[in-house]
């Protein structure tokens, strides 16, 4: 590859196995799994159920052997980038190390095997895990009560909003609107809608912060809550957070905090202390549970005392003697947000993570913030920093300087791939045109941060001197930029024989 400059230190080309779709390997009669013999009399399905209820064989369903399955997915896996391979500086995503012991304990017999409907006397271990995690999360956030039910951040947002709504309703008026800064994540407005509210977008000020004067105007009797992300999605702490809370509280509205950026605060400051009423955490971000190519996650919601009666069922309660139980008989509850007891397997991993650090979790936060600032320092001379405020766990540059050469944040992101890195987050937050949102997390060594800084500097140089090289990247991957427009125009969403 002639374009491969010697500046690329982190990767080299190597061979990579091709592989078709599993359906393309199928042949009748191959088996990848065998069942133990049936130890009861067989039953004729058509006779037992009525033939109208019995299906034909499944057209196109694969028939392959075990080794073909192993190879298929092993080969596929080698086409992925991952935290285990290197830095994954996706801003807002907190792609940190996923400890292996968490995978181990999540699979223990007696935990992975438990059924949500088994009698609570036989589920004390599961309940204790939930209860212990709840206590940890309350201590870390400084809040009063918690539900672990929500399956991800977005469901946490919805749950939190429903709690505010339920409380307001109980006081006679659910109100109509939720305020959302323009820097917010897309799930925030989407959740507001499901909660039955209107979205009122509010503009950030020139410093990327919430303008309190502006806010004062918007907080009317119609406003149920403000959803804020703190540190904001540009990685900056809302200095006036207490004032913001006060403005809301004075008008009977509440402060919801999207806790996606809690990796900047754990052990350093507590939302409960600075006026937050309701918040969620993303355990698959801050608490290290693996992202698995898109999930699972968990989005616990923490609230102040007044919202507690409204928590979704079931609620873990302590009975006398330390016995734990699941309470579903809660008349004021917003109801159930998903079946069973939340993403238990994710919650369990988050507890394992918390126990590994204990109060030392503060060091995590410090390292995350040091890394972000180190990268900021290293890249400030090369990239435009639209909001020059102190960065916490992430830093957001823009492609303003590179745009002059026709090179966009997406181009730089793709070129980073050639340098051996996963791209940063592009195109978010919306308040930064051409955003380059970089969150290294605490899991990166100085060496990896230095390589990243080097790569970005080198790309900045390329953008000036050889913009085409950057605009056509990546050049070293097994596949080039894909035709996304074509994919969406006439979507092919499944294999067909």
């Amino acid at each position, binding site marked *: 590859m002639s374009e491969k400059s010697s500046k690329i230190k982190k990767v080299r080309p190597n061979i990579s196995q091709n592989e078709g779709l599993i359906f393309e390997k199928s042949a009748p009669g191959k088996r990848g799994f065998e069942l133990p013999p049936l130890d009861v009399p067989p039953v004729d399905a058509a006779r037992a159920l009525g033939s109208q209820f019995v299906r034909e064989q499944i057209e196109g369903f694969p028939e392959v052997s075990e080794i073909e399955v192993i190879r298929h997915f092993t080969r*596929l896996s080698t086409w992925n980038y991952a935290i285990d391979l290197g830095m994954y500086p996706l801003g807002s995503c907190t792609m940190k190390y996923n400890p292996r012991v968490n995978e181990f304990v999540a699979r223990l017999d007696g935990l992975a095997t438990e059924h949500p409907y088994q009698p609570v006397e036989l589920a004390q271990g599961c309940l204790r895990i939930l209860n212990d995690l709840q206590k940890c999360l309350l201590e870390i956030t400084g809040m009063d009560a918690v539900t672990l039910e929500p399956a991800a951040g977005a469901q946490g947002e919805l749950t939190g909003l429903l709690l505010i709504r339920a409380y307001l309703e109980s006081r006679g008026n659910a109100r109509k609107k939720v305020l959302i800064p323009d820097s917010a994540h897309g799930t925030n407005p989407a959740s507001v809608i499901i909660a039955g509210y209107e979205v009122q977008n509010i503009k950030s000020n020139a410093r990327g912060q919430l303008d309190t004067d502006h806010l004062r105007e918007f907080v009317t009797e119609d406003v149920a809550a403000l959803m804020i992300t703190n540190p904001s999605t540009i990685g900056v702490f809302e200095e006036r957070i207490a004032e913001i809370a006060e403005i809301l509280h004075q008008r009977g509205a509440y402060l919801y905090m999207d806790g996606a950026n809690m990796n900047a605060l754990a052990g350093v400051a507590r939302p409960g202390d600075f006026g937050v009423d309701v918040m969620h955490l993303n355990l698959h971000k801050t608490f290290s549970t693996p992202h698995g190519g898109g999930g699972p996650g968990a989005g616990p919601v923490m609230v102040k005392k007044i919202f507690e009666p409204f928590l979704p069922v079931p609620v873990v309660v302590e009975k006398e003697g330390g016995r734990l139980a699941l309470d579903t008989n809660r008349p004021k509850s917003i109801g159930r947000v998903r079946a069973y007891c939340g993403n238990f397997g994710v919650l369990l991993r988050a507890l394992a993570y918390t126990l590994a650090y204990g109060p030392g979790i503060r060091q995590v936060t410090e390292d995350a913030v040091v890394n972000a600032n180190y990268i900021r320092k290293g890249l400030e001379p090369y990239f435009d920093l639209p909001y020059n405020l102190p960065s916490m766990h992430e830093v957001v540059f823009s492609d303003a300087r590179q745009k002059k050469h026709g090179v966009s944040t997406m181009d730089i992101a793709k070129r980073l791939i050639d340098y051996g890195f996963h791209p940063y987050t592009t195109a978010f937050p919306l308040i930064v045109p051409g955003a380059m949102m970089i969150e290294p997390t605490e899991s990166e060594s100085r060496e990896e941060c230095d390589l990243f800084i080097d790569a970005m500097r080198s790309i900045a140089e390329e953008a000036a001197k050889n913009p085409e090289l950057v605009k056509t990247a990546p050049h070293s991957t097994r596949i080039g930029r894909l035709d996304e427009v074509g994919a969406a125009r006439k979507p092919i969403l499944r294999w067909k024989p």
Partner: protein
Amino acid sequence: MRYLPKSPSERQEMLKAIGAKSVEELFQSIPAKFRLKEPLRLPGPLSEQEIIGYFRARAEENARGYTSFLGAGVYQHLSSVVPDAIVQRGEFLTSYTPYQAEISQGTLTAIFEFQTLMAQLTGQEVANASMYDGSTALTEAVLMAERLTSRSRVLVARTLHPEYRQVLQTYAKHLGLTVEEIGFTATGQIDLLALRAAGLAGVAAVAVQSPNFFGVVESIPTLAEAVRSSGALLVTAITEAVSLGLLRPPAEADIVAMEGQSFGIPPSYGGPFVGVIATHYKDVRQMPGRLAGQTTDAAGRRGFVLTLATREQHIRREKATSNICTNEALYALAATIHLCLLGKEGLREMAEQNLAKARFAQAELEKIPGVKAAFSGPSFNEFVLEFPRSMKMINAELLRDKIIGPLPLGHFYTDQTKRGLVCVTETMPRAEIERLAECIERILSKPV
């Protein structure tokens, strides 16, 4: 601090490079009064060994050594060790949502395969990847029907999983939907007369489950027939996905909402599982959740990308089809691997074993004086029995024999305190089925 790749002196050097005198300086933007002065009161730090010790101790406090006849949406099925070995490869386990297609083809290809498998199984044209679980999939399917029909009435069978119905209620409440419940007949199936009586005018969705919460198979073609002309959509939930190895798929339904836990995902006290929505190709733009689509690069090589993102919150914000973002991708992958191993024949054989074992168990249990089937409809691997005494009392006794007995229906249907839902899958040894029957017979033969 074993997870942190920094030495004390590296920390100092990095601070110096930043130009900060101390790490405190980096937190100056947080008002001083909010900065913690004391360390948090958290348990730990624990070594790896201690963490394992903690969780092993918890595992001991659970139901190890018990034989369980619980199902009700969460099933014990055989699975190979292979899927778990593969999902633990760092390349799958520790990657993010595949936004950067060039370095995410592994995940994207697997998602495309998942979508295909789910479509094949459900008899639908397209399927997404993925929803949080079956309950939220059902809920989102109903919301999708609302968007497609612009109507606001929802008719839900009382034979639909009670917790699914509760979740639907939670979501529906504030969206102006009215949810009406439709009862069931002596077959254990939805009451078609009641359905007709409720009227389908203004109905966005009729939601049923098959096999339903009582284990009874609903007649989807009949329901589709009944619903079609009204303009309402038929939404079918599936909680026991293994049934699709043998049962006619709900091809006539407009939207299928499925829980994929049965495909090799451990019960794990209720999650994480994997929900799926499958539907008509024409309605895909109203479908929530991730979709991978096939395309090519400039050199014409086949590749996969996340597509139709204009449905999603990160593009459309308040106009999105759903607020879902993080989903259950890793379990979609696990289910994909599991199904590839099982294959056409394996899945059918597994389903047939379920049927055979459940029928055997039902026959054994019905031999007990006073025990009889509660419903007459066809069932797969779950069935409801009516006992001469309260389920609660019987179950309390069974625990002494280390058996977790039938799910007491009274918990969800207050008038059914003597009824229990029995689940028997291919994992249940015949001897244990016989032991259950013996124990119940013994319990019932004791004077009250």
